[in-house]
């Protein structure tokens, strides 16, 4: 037996971590999160558009529509509380022909039915003034002022930290192979041993339908749908102020062009149904398709300033909606959480946590711990604040990542967080060291050294992203 817990959550993506946090704020029950990867947010949660959708896309009456609108409304306060970069920049869905105007009108009606506030059609003249870089072919656009952008992985890190502060444990590198019924609850089988629990929650993303099949006769099937993206360096002046969508298709919301909360430009995604849900490779065809499609929105697009490209795989359940609830006695699930999953996660977690606590008779939490105060990044400080930060900790005077201006103190803090970074990529996503235009060319060796010091492991044992992804193969 590896572990014993009251509640076992399988999967440490945004859903698993939001649920862990929500549960930890409600109940004193023991909560354990088992994650196959080496860190939280390693699946679709780290590799998506980072959009807080307004909620006009989903069909009225669907779980997607309801949780999207409810989740989006929770974002401003949640991000403020957790100190996560979020900006309500609004979204524009552009029509490039009069025929597409009908689509916008349908989206507007649908959005209003879903309860989205402030939707309106913006005509060409105003549109040009709002977004001068938008293609002159644009006829009109649907404006959704409640849409926003968020750093998706930073949200998950903050959710996980807050959950950990409230007693949640995380087990990484622990894939759950199967779930078995026991007299006292459930047993999760992993390569390193079994985890016994009173109740289990399947938040396994791409793997969630497989686990569902082990406990329920109701068939669910996930089609892994890959999306590829380009990331461009911070432009000197923002290219677009809003998240720019094109008219949606049967495969999803199409290719968007959006600023990110860190000032980069993000282009994508494609929508390709693939067989291997863990295949996050990009392809020449996919990346070319992103550019070609994005040019319709932004004719002057050039990938000359490209910083990187990536892909993520969304868990598309064939029924097209989220599947949330009880799969079997004491076995709960959130399956098929694709877009707008990031937006919906806070609401989904609240509702599911409430349902689990009520149904499973979990004890109420006496006292909760507030989230850690987010330190302002050194890069965003005024010179006076920077001077003060160095007085407080001289390691702030030592810059490791020159592109994104990240200090040694910030890198050490990223590793020392409650659910801290254990890999080079984990450091990168937590504090942006290596995220810039040189992509770690200068700072990666220093980051490896700091990880080795902080984790007490040799430099040759430091990995890029867990598993066999060692940065170095040995000494010379």
């Amino acid at each position, binding site marked *: 037996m590896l572990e014993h817990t009251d509640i076992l959550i399988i999967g440490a993506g945004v859903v698993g971590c939001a649920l862990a946090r929500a549960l930890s704020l409600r109940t004193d029950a023991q909560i354990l999160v088992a994650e196959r990867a080496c860190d939280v947010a390693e699946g679709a949660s780290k590799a998506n558009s980072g959009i807080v959708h307004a909620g006009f896309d989903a069909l009225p009456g669907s779980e997607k529509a309801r949780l999207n609108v409810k989740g989006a409304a929770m974002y401003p306060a949640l991000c403020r509380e957790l100190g996560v970069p979020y900006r309500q920049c609004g979204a524009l869905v552009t029509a490039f022909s009069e025929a597409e105007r009908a689509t916008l009108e349908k989206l507007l009606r649908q959005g209003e039915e879903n309860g989205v506030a402030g939707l309106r059609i913006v005509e060409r003249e105003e549109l040009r003034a709002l977004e001068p870089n938008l293609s002159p072919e644009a006829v009109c656009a649907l404006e959704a002022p409640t849409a926003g952008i968020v750093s998706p992985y930073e949200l998950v890190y903050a959710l996980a930290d807050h959950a950990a502060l409230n007693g949640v444990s995380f087990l990484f590198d622990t894939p759950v192979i199967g779930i078995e019924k026991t007299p006292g609850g459930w047993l999760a089988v992993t390569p390193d041993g079994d985890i016994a629990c009173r109740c289990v929650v399947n938040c396994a993303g791409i793997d969630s339908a497989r686990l569902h099949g082990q406990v329920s006769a109701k068939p669910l099937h996930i089609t892994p749908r890959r999306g590829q993206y*380009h*990331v461009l360096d911070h432009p*000197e002046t923002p290219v677009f102020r809003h998240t720019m969508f094109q008219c949606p298709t049967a495969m999803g919301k199409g290719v968007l062009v959006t600023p990110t909360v860190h000032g980069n430009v993000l282009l994508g995604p494609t929508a390709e149904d693939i067989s291997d849900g*863990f295949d*996050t*490779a*990009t*392809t*020449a065809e*996919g*990346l070319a398709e992103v550019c070609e499609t994005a040019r319709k929105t932004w004719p002057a697009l050039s*990938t000359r300033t*490209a*910083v*990187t*490209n*990536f892909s993520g795989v969304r868990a598309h359940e064939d029924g097209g909606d989220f599947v949330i609830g009880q799969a079997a006695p004491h076995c709960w699930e959130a399956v098929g959480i694709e877009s707008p999953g990031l937006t919906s996660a806070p609401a989904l977690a609240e509702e599911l946590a409430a349902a689990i606590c009520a149904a499973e008779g979990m004890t109420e939490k006496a006292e909760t711990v507030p989230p850690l105060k987010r330190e302002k990044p050194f890069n965003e400080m005024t*010179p*006076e604040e*920077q*001077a003060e930060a*160095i*007085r407080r900790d*001289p*390691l*702030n*005077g*030592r*810059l490791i990542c*020159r*592109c994104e*201006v990240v200090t040694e103190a910030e890198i050490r803090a990223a590793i020392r967080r409650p659910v801290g970074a254990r890999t080079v990529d984990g450091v990168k996503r937590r504090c942006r060291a290596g995220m810039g*235009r*040189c*992509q*770690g*060319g*200068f700072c*990666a*060796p220093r980051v490896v*050294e700091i990880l080795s010091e902080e984790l007490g492991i040799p*430099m*040759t044992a430091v*990995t*890029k*992203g*867990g*598993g*066999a*992804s*060692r*940065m*170095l*193969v*040995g*000494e*010379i």
Partner: protein
Amino acid sequence: METIRKALVIIGGGPAGLAAGIAAREAGVTDLVILEREDEAGGILRQCIHNGFGLHRYGEELTGPEYAARDIARAAELGLGIRCGTTVLSVSPERLVTCVSKQEGLQVFEAGAVILAMGCRERPRGALGTPGTRCAGVYTAGAAQKFVNLEGLMPGRRVVILGSGDIGLIMARRMTLQGAKVLACVELMPYSSGLNRNIVQCLQDFDIPLYLSHTVTDIRGRERLEGVTVMEVDEHRRPIPGTETDFACDTLLLSVGLIPENELSRQAGVPLSPVTGGAVVDDRLHTGVPGIFACGNVLHVHDLVDFVSDESFRAGQAAAAFLRGEAPDAPAVEVRDGEGVRGTVPQRLHPDHDVTLMFRPAGVYKNAAVVAESAGVELARKRAMIFTPGEMATLPLKAEKLRGVTAPITVRMEVKENG
């Protein structure tokens, strides 16, 4: 916030910053400081443990650290202040230089003159848009060089090198000497971007094949790199279907270009050249912002450190002259790239003394001549058996020829028929 007055602030303590500082001090500037972000001066030379440095300047072959040590020793002799572990955060057009360090915290220098000597960085994978997985084992050649030469750690055992820049070639040999197997060096262009001597000494001497007009089109491996696909490209640099070759390797080193690191220059309002990626300067290495000078790889990427030092000496002297209040006698004349010539530096010159133009040939030219002319009058001509983009070319202009020149000067390649 307290500001510290300094006659001269030099940003960067690599070979460029050191030479600029030495020259400025020798020209009488005593109140100067060199700001270096690493814990030691010397810049990228610190990790270049191979030899071949100093042939032009000293007539002998030094290693990178040996070359740097001579400048550091001279700087010490002159009592130059070198502040290591100090990163510059910003430079304003008014020459306010804000920097941070562990020891001194945040400081603002109010400089009479500033010399930009920040060097360059390597183009990373993302800039190429190479598709595939984001596994471990893909490094720029310089990052791998730092691991091997400064940390004593091996980044991999079976290596493919993309790009034939000099650092990539040097690392092909270095990795081989450390027991790694270097399977191939793959170059997109039909010619190498590295020095010919490095092709011979680092690839040919070790039987490492160089694939010209080829590129890496796929990167495989979920965790650590497992292999890459290499394809031949056509004259438009597009991969030719059917030419795929797979290499099983655990390491891909990138040597696909160097980019002058001009983020600070941009903040200071220094106009940059889209061709060189560095500042637009005159023959005094003076940028478009008064009192701000640029030299070395931050200005344009050099092949040899000897030429970096030479250019930087001139920048140091020019900054000293500026601080003495001296200004050129003649108005500046524009210098333009003509046919077959890219990135001529300086981009404008005062025709009052000898000036050497530096540029890169736009392609391979055999049995050709490079010509400078102004208003139809030839100012200088230089013949060579071969001009290639991998080797920076120079063209000296004599003061007597320049006298009275006011029309723009064009530098172009002249190729003999059937040449």
